[in-house]
Structure formats: structure tokens, C-alpha cells
């Protein structure tokens, strides 16, 4: 049996309040009668917006990892640390569980998010119909896990705020922090602009219409 989706039945699920509404017309679905939001069967320009944000995030990912995020000044000499440097510092100072948390949150999660979004975008554009449930689950994992990458930005902020004991010791933020924050913000918006219904549309449209 062909699954009956709202789109095939000429209905729209309101993106804001979830009300199932009849499209005013095929080209302009109109506004939700309950909450007044503009109705859209699928998020407008979902693939283009997501691609643009993913590419922007991927570009920011490079300086985020190459530039230092923290500089520590001890008695006149300054030492700079990148994200990986911070992980190594935590590991060598004996707190390997923390090193692991920061490694996962700051290095693996942002990279994994970018790869997952690219994978979702490519499979949707190729009209893949395999593993729809798993891809939907992957999408929600990306959405859920995104915020945790902000960890390093908070660590740097509170380290900088607290360690201001010049001339003895002071910590300054490095240029990498802002790129890192940009990666997190851009991938979060990218995930939010991707429409998971597109994953399922290929399966619906390849089968003959019985409606």
C-alpha cells in the first residue's frame, strides 16, 4: 500500500503549531487558521539553505582547529593552545576522562555533524529510498548533539574570565574561538533548516499514485 502523506492528500501540517490544515491552493498553501503562521508543505529552500550553511561551517572548521583558542601568559611569556592542544593538556595533566569529553564534544561532534549533514543532503538529492528510518534517526542525533559542541567556547570563556592575575598569570582568548563558535552556530541552523520529510518523499513519489 502506498503511504498516504499529508502532501499527497493536499494537506499541510503547520510547522509552528502542528495543526493539519487544507492547502488554500496548490501553489500558495496560505496561512494556518489556528496560529496564523505561513503554511509550507516542506520547508522552503531546505536543501539549498542547508548546503550553504554546511559549506560555511566546513570553511570555519579549518581556522577553528588551526588557530589558537587560548593564550596563557606566565611572567611575560605567552603560550598558545589550539583545541587539540587543550585536549592534550587535559590528558597529560592526568584527567583523561575530561580529555575524552572535550575531544568528543569539540573535535569529533562538529566533524561528525558536518559529515552526517552532507550524507543526508546527498542521499536526499539522489532520491535514495534505503534506510529511511535510520537516516531520520541520524538527523535527530545531529539535532540533539549539536549544542554540546559549544562546550569548548564555555570552557575558554570561564578560563579567561577567572585567570586574570597579571603580572603573575593571565589567559587571553585566541582567534580560533570565534570560528569555533561559528561552526557550532552554523551547523545548528543547518540542522534546523533541513526538512526530514524530504528523506521520505522519494519513497512516496516513486510509487504510483492511487489517491
Amino acid at each position, binding site marked *: 500500500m502506498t503511504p498516504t502523506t499529508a502532501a499527497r492528500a493536499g494537506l499541510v501540517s503547520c510547522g509552528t503549531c502542528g495543526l*493539519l490544515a487544507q492547502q*488554500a491552493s496548490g501553489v500558495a498553501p496560505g496561512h494556518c*487558521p489556528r496560529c*496564523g503562521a505561513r503554511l509550507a508543505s516542506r520547508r522552503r529552500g531546505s536543501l539549498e539553505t542547508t548546503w550553504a550553511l554546511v559549506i560555511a561551517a566546513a570553511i570555519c572548521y579549518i581556522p577553528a582547529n588551526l588557530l589558537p583558542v587560548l593564550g596563557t601568559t606566565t611572567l611575560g611569556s605567552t603560550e598558545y593552545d589550539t583545541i587539540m592542544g587543550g585536549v592534550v593538556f587535559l590528558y597529560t595533566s592526568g584527567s583523561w576522562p575530561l580529555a575524552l*569529553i572535550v575531544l568528543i564534544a569539540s573535535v569529533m561532534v562538529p566533524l561528525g555533524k558536518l559529515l552526517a549533514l552532507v550524507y543526508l543532503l546527498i542521499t536526499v538529492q539522489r532520491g535514495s529510498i534505503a534506510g529511511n528510518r535510520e537516516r531520520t534517526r541520524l538527523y535527530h542525533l545531529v539535532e540533539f548533539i549539536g*549544542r554540546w559542541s559549544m562546550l*569548548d567556547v564555555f570552557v575558554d570563556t570561564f578560563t579567561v574570565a577567572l585567570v586574570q592575575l597579571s603580572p603573575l598569570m593571565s589567559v587571553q*582568548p585566541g582567534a580560533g574561538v570565534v570560528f569555533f563558535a561559528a561552526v557550532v552556530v552554523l551547523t545548528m541552523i543547518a540542522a534546523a533548516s533541513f526538512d*526530514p520529510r524530504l528523506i*521520505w518523499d522519494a519513497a512516496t513519489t516513486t510509487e504510483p499514485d492511487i489517491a
Partner: protein
Amino acid sequence: MTGAGHAETLACPDCDLLQVVPELPPGVKASCARCGRTLVTQTADSIERPLALSIAALLVLILANTAPLMGLSVVGQQASTTIVGGAWEMWHQGQELTAVVVAFCAVFAPAAYLLCTLAVLLAARRPPAPRWVGELLRWAEAMQPWSMVEVMMLGILVALIKIAELAVVEPDIGMYAVGVLMLLIPAIQSSFDPEAIWKRVTWADDESLPPDGAVQAAGTPDPRSAP
């Protein structure tokens, strides 16, 4: 309550499958038949419980933002910081954009989320709720992913352990407040049911509540495309 004892037709937000969801007893969830996404969660007390929790969270939020997070002492020198103090120091050190992101995710988004939720719940206690309740509900939902209290908590802990290598650091009241807030916000989210609020809000189309089971109402045509 409207819709009591009525089945409701919904489209899954993840895969767009149309399905009829029967009236559920409290504490029961309904999942999409095709993709498994949770469609409806019937919460036992969708107004009073999140209302109590959000009042508590708002008070703890004030404490978390005014009390120092932690203090540091090294050979007679002392320092302490608050959440806003952290963002301010980043701004001061030339990282204005990062400071804005930190202030937004650590202070503005949680505060806006809690204030909007509180206003929505207060106004929805006696239906029909005015239309601005829907607008505020939309704001609360937009703020939710950006409110990163639990991430900040972990960040504070990691910073604390990092600095402990260099100096004596002591957790202060603000940090404990952040810890409590980290537990209260998910508790609000799990007891809060946006659908229950939407059912009480006055419809945009006509200034009245809809009749029972009014699904598949027609969308309002765009004024520009209307003949």
C-alpha cells in the same frame, strides 16, 4: 478541554504520514507508524506542574546570574567570576562576537525561554487564551535549542579542573544554582505540552475557539494571491 474523547488526524512532522491518533490516557505516547517519531505525549498535568517548575527555575536563574560561579586564589591574589562576567571579559579581550554568542546561549536564551513559558502557562490557565500566547509559545520553542545551561555547566566544570592545575579554585553559589537550573529546565520541557496550549489558544482565523475535533480546517489564502 477541547477534543476530549476524540481521535485526531495528524501528519508526522518527520515523514508527513497521515494517521489517526486516538485519545490517549495520561502518560501514554503515540509514535509514528512509519518512522517511529513520537507524535503525541499525553502529559498528566500540562499546566500547573510546568508552571510551578518554571517559577522555581526563574528564581534559580536570577541566583545563577548574580552570584559568583567560582573563586580563585593564588599567592594572596583573588579573583571570581559570574556568567555575565565571563562574557564581558571575552568582549573586553577583543572577542566581541564570541562574547555575544556566550551571553545569548548562557543568559538571554534561557531567560527568554523561561519568561515566555511562564507567560504562556499563566495565560493558558483559563481558556480561551488570547492570540499572543501562540506568539510567545513560538518564541519559547525558538529559544529552546539555544538555551545551553547544561553545556555551560559542563564547561564550568572543565574550566574548574583545568584551572585547579594552576591555582586553588573553589565552586561558589552561582555554580550550584546553574546545577539546579540544569535539572529544572528539562523537567519543564518534559511536563510541558505545547499541543495542550495550542488547543486553548484563540484561532487566528476567527476570534473564537474551534468546535471539537476541528481538524483539516482550510488554510487562509495568502492575501496577495487571493482573487
